[in-house]
């Protein structure tokens, strides 16, 4: 369930430094979400699709992720085409869909999915612990980084704990239904796990204390920039530049053809 299925590989995305990837991915996504021009969004989206093969990630796996994410986008498709004023295109009963509404829903779809493709190729090609260490290097507050790393560390442990309690309930013939007994049982399990987590939190702090923890956070990760970071940055800035100046480029290409 908590597999980081994209984090291991040998593409340039996997080899690049996590700090660089975080920064350029944020720039890329920012450009994408703040673009409202169809051509520009299309260019940014199409390029984001090419990132997946460059990162040597299976398209099928990414597609599975996209389906889940698109539930919110789908939800908006039920409203936006019909609630945006503009040129009518078609109607269902008394609801009139407009060109402007469809365009906006389409833009959102491209942006949401493009952003996911960027996160998958840039960010998910680094394991979560290494991302944490990168946040440390990017001068995020030590407490924040520590919180991030420790939370990641204990998700699996607590997930297992919950599964074991759920199994214990199952063998006592517990069946999930829409009733108070079910809600009560889930509340009890969850409260019990919270209490044990509280006790565990104290033990973990003790373990840290015994190894000299004094509130400071160290990381062993070496940070060296490589040619891969240059490639990654170049790819990103190239894409952003093309999207920004697409009209001029188109104009120039047209001229050449003529």
């Amino acid at each position, binding site marked *: 369930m908590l597999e980081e299925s994209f984090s291991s590989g040998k593409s340039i995305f996997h080899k690049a430094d996590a700090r660089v990837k975080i920064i350029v991915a944020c720039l890329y996504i920012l450009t994408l979400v703040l673009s409202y021009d169809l051509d520009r969004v299309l260019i940014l989206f199409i390029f984001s699709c090419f990132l997946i093969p460059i990162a040597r990630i299976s398209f099928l796996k990414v597609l599975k992720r996209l389906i889940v994410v698109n539930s919110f986008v789908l939800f908006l498709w039920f409203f936006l085409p019909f609630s945006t004023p503009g040129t009518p295109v078609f109607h269902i009963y008394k609801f009139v869909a407009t060109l402007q509404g469809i365009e906006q829903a389409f833009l959102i779809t491209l942006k949401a999915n493009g952003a996911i493709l960027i996160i998958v190729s840039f960010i998910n090609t680094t394991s979560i612990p290494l991302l944490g260490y990168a946040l440390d290097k990017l001068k995020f507050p030590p407490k924040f980084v520590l919180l991030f790393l420790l939370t990641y560390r204990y998700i699996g442990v607590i997930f297992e*704990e919950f599964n*074991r*309690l759920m*199994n*214990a*309930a*199952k*063998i*006592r*013939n*517990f*069946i999930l239904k829409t009733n108070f*007994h079910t809600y009560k*049982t889930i509340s*009890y*399990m969850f*409260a*019990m796990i919270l*209490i*044990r987590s509280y006790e565990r939190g104290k033990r973990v702090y003790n373990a840290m204390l015994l190894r000299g923890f004094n509130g400071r956070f160290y990381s062993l990760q070496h940070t060296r920039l490589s040619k891969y970071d240059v490639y990654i940055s170049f790819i990103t800035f190239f894409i952003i530049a093309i999207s920004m100046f697409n009209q001029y480029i188109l104009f120039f290409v047209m001229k050449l053809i003529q």
Partner: protein
Amino acid sequence: MGTPILELKSISFKYTTSKEYILKGLSFKIEPKDRIGIIGANGEGKTSFLHVCVGLLNPQEGEILFKGQIVKTDKDLISLRRSIGLVFQNPEDQLFSPTVLEDVAFGPLNLGLSKEKARDRAIWALEQVGLSGFEDRITNKLSGGEKKLLSLATILAMKPEIMLLDEPTTGLAPSTRETIIHLLNAQDIGFVIVSHDWDFLARTTKKLFVMEGGELIEADMDILHKHYHAHPYGYLEHEHPEKKIL
């Protein structure tokens, strides 16, 4: 002999994360009121075997028959779990209610008993394990031994025909261990006990199986005789209840 309560037919099981099978073509029968001990080194799949028995793990190959019927649907599983109770090794994994009574009544309530009957059943089960008067105690504040006894009571309260116990004596004080021996012998139901505690098995079971290479192999009960003094508290004062030994 009649129909066995549970029958496993050439079961093979592996965890999805692992390549190797942990149970390999295992066949096993539990007849009514059987008293079976299972020994074997750690990592041999004794716990996985118990979890397969109650349908918490699904074997890749083989069949499970409950009272002669193949277990297929969720409904079959529910009736199987009515009859076969599993006590986990770690009581912490089994107890999740704030108070003792609520935890013991949880199973009977799931079986469809009325609140009153469930309460009676819970009080009876607590009596069986020697925890009468603990009804309103906070589960989380019990000692390790009391938690163990309570986890036994939660299963006894469902009146199973067979009880599966996973390492029931690990880390217990000698007195609690003694309580468990007496309470198990007082029940008129079957048991399958997985344990490293030889003396405990000698005093509670009548058949012995060894888990090795993913299979259960019947062993001679004499093994336990030879190791009679092998229990963890041999250095403390203890009785030798000779009559209990086969």
